[in-house]
């Protein structure tokens, strides 16, 4: 096996990069000027989902391995990748009698603030699992698994997967999930019942453009600063909802294509979101051979391309649904990875970009974590002291 290079993870930003051949950790201090790349971890395993859980004093990395021969499981590391668990039995598994067999874990999502031991996982075949003990044990969301639509859900090109989980920040009973290619489903009662939540989202590849279900939603992202608002990148179509999926509005005016995979929201501004359009479903590459990130700052009324630092010739790149992330700092850092193994970062909210790594295996997942190694009160005190010094000067 390849030798793993470890990074020293201190106060700063950590990128969790899942690739088709293992995971990588990429770290910088809060200036985000100089980055160190660690890995490969879990070498050889496709890692489609990663997450960092820093709640309750934990420093736990999750990495969902999908070994093409030996199956899927959820690995954890409490020492930033130096050691990983390799559980005898996958902690995420379909219960006996359900008829399901875990093929792949597509998403690991933390619960709402205050639900400090809650995690959710989205898997293939399309199902939702919940953990209430910080990831030790997991339970199948039975009502969604037993949904009357499920026998007629059709797989997308990547498989029949539940790839997006959005716990509503303002409602402990509400969760939106996205399934390819079934659409958006929502519970308002903590998972006891689920209804479709994709009215207005088209399924261009079907004879009935607005079916009851069967939409191929590629990604949804929301912002806690404005509960109920989500942006959606569809298999053809770019949408926004302000009512938690009850209705979706087309916001694709001003982008070179409304086909693409990722969409991420700004961590502080609910009107701002980022996408990387692709030319079409037949040619899933950046249009015109130019790698461009598009940003809206007015909730989708208009879009602005950013290309500074990104290749603008012969760049036929693909960014997959979980290949883009943002950090929570101010200004926010934006990150994305390509199927060609290039990892880019912007520390000025998308205006300019820097290549952090080239030649990684195909990147399928980019998640972020802000690591605090000093107590927030101390940092605040130092900032206050600096402000006082400046004031005195």
């Amino acid at each position: 096996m390849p030798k793993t290079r470890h990074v020293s993870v201190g106060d700063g930003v950590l990128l969790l990069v899942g690739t088709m051949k293992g995971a990588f950790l990429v770290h910088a201090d809060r200036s985000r000027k100089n980055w160190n790349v660690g890995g490969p971890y879990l070498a050889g395993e496709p890692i489609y989902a990663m997450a960092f859980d820093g709640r309750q004093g934990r420093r736990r990395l999750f990495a969902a391995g999908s070994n093409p021969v030996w199956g899927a499981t959820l690995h954890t590391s409490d020492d930033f990748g130096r050691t990983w668990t390799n559980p005898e039995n996958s902690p995420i598994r379909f219960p006996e009698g359900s008829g399901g067999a875990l093929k792949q874990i597509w998403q690991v999502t933390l619960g709402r603030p205050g639900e400090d031991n809650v995690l959710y996982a989205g898997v293939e075949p399309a199902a939702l699992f919940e953990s209430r003990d910080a990831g030790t044990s997991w339970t199948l969301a039975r009502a969604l698994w037993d949904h009357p639509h499920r026998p007629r859900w059709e797989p997308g090109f990547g498989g029949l997967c539940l790839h997006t989980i959005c716990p509503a920040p303002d409602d402990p009973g509400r969760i939106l999930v996205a399934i390819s290619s079934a659409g958006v489903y929502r519970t308002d009662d903590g998972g006891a019942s689920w209804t479709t939540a994709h009215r207005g989202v088209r399924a261009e590849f079907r004879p009935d453009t607005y079916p009851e279900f069967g939409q191929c939603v590629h990604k949804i992202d929301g912002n806690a600063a404005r509960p109920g608002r989500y942006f959606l990148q569809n298999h053809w179509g770019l949408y926004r909802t302000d009512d938690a999926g009850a209705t979706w509005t087309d916001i694709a005016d001003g982008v070179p294509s409304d086909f693409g995979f990722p969409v991420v929201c700004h961590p502080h501004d609910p009107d701002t979101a980022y996408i990387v359009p692709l030319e079409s479903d037949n040619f899933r590459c950046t249009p015109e051979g130019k790698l461009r990130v598009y940003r809206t700052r007015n909730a989708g009324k208009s879009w602005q391309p950013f290309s500074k630092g990104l290749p603008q010739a012969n760049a036929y790149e693909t960014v997959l649904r979980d290949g883009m992330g943002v950090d929570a700092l101010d200004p926010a850092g934006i990150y994305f990875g390509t199927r060609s193994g290039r990892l880019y970062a912007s520390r000025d909210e998308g205006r300019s970009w820097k290549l952090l790594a080239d030649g990684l295996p195909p990147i399928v997942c980019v998640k972020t974590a802000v690591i605090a190694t000093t107590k927030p009160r101390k940092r605040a005190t130092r900032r206050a002291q600096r402000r006082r010094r400046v004031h005195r000067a």
Partner: protein
Amino acid sequence: MAVTFHIPTYLRAFTHGEARVDLDVVPGSVRDALRALYEAYPGIRDRVETELGEVRPHVNVFLGEESIRWLGGLDTPVGGATEISIVPAVSGG
């Protein structure tokens, strides 16, 4: 009677590094033999079989020199001293 299992590299994480495991059991079938292996080394089960009890599509189980896919699957009878090999498919990119 002993059944000898040949363990591939990936699964040796669950057999304390052993490439060969001998179990003193009298299985009626390959399924029984594997059950005995899983009991001794629980981590192997999830890697070889799905939750539905089916051998994963890219895992091959050989009885002697023949894949059980071309015999009777997991119900293939086991007679006499037996060697069972668990072999990952040569596939992927």
